[in-house]
């Protein structure tokens, strides 16, 4: 590892460590609400990493949508189901198997990544938001429309599923 790290690299490392540790607590916590809060930690740090990597727009969208809406929705679900929040076993009896699978996945992926991209350097510079907008509404306008239809379908589907009648 190079000792002369630049500012963005230090920032990346800080947020990456926070994201990793909080990630472990998400799957290890014995309390559902605490797990959701650790998830906020992961998502927020990942958002900050996007900004460090130059994706300013994606970073703030991550905070706005993931932290501000998705996790709040999850908390809402936790409170609404009034299911036991802590104390009872939140894990099933597959933990050893799950651990082996996860460790193998991580080991395999890391091996492949370092073999393939071990020497690749990236230059960090911000992407202009206008560039993303232009590209979204010219090159990707069809996927964009498809996603909007998908969101509409999800909205209708969620209402149909959750309403009492």
């Amino acid at each position: 590892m190079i000792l002369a790290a630049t500012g963005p690299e230090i920032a990346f490392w800080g947020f990456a460590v926070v994201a990793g540790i909080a990630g472990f607590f998400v799957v290890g916590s014995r309390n559902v609400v605490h797990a959701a809060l650790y998830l906020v930690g992961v998502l927020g740090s990942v958002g900050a990493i996007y900004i460090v990597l130059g994706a300013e727009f994606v970073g703030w969208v991550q905070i706005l949508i993931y932290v501000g809406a998705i996790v709040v929705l999850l908390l809402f679900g936790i409170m609404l189901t009034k299911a036991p929040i802590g104390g009872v076993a939140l894990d099933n009896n597959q933990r050893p198997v799950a651990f082996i699978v996860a460790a193998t996945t991580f080991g395999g992926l890391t091996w492949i990544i370092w073999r393939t991209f071990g020497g690749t350097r990236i230059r960090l510079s911000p992407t202009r938001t206008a560039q993303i907008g232009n590209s979204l509404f010219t090159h990707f306008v069809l996927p964009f429309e498809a996603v909007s239809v998908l969101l509409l379908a999800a909205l209708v589907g969620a209402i149909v599923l959750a309403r009492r009648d």
Partner: protein
Amino acid sequence: MNLAWPLTLGALLFSIGVYGVLARRNAVLVLMSIELMLNAVNVNLVAFSTWIRETIAIGQIFALFVITIAAAEVGIGLAIVLLIFRNRETINIDEIDLLKW
């Protein structure tokens, strides 16, 4: 910065998500683990976007799409969880075994 580091972070988050999906029995916690895995994919997309640096920012666009789809997925997922809770009074996925006997 070395491209491999963000990718390794992605791999780590993905593996944590895999562990969570396999080991958790509370449906909301499984949803959270899926979010972790989706985020790991996004880290990779943004990192590659920074590496390739093409003008259409394809990686970031797809990260946005993934975020949108994650929102839709959580909405539907929670609706299903609510429905299951209403009918079965539990959201432990190993007790939801109506199709087994």
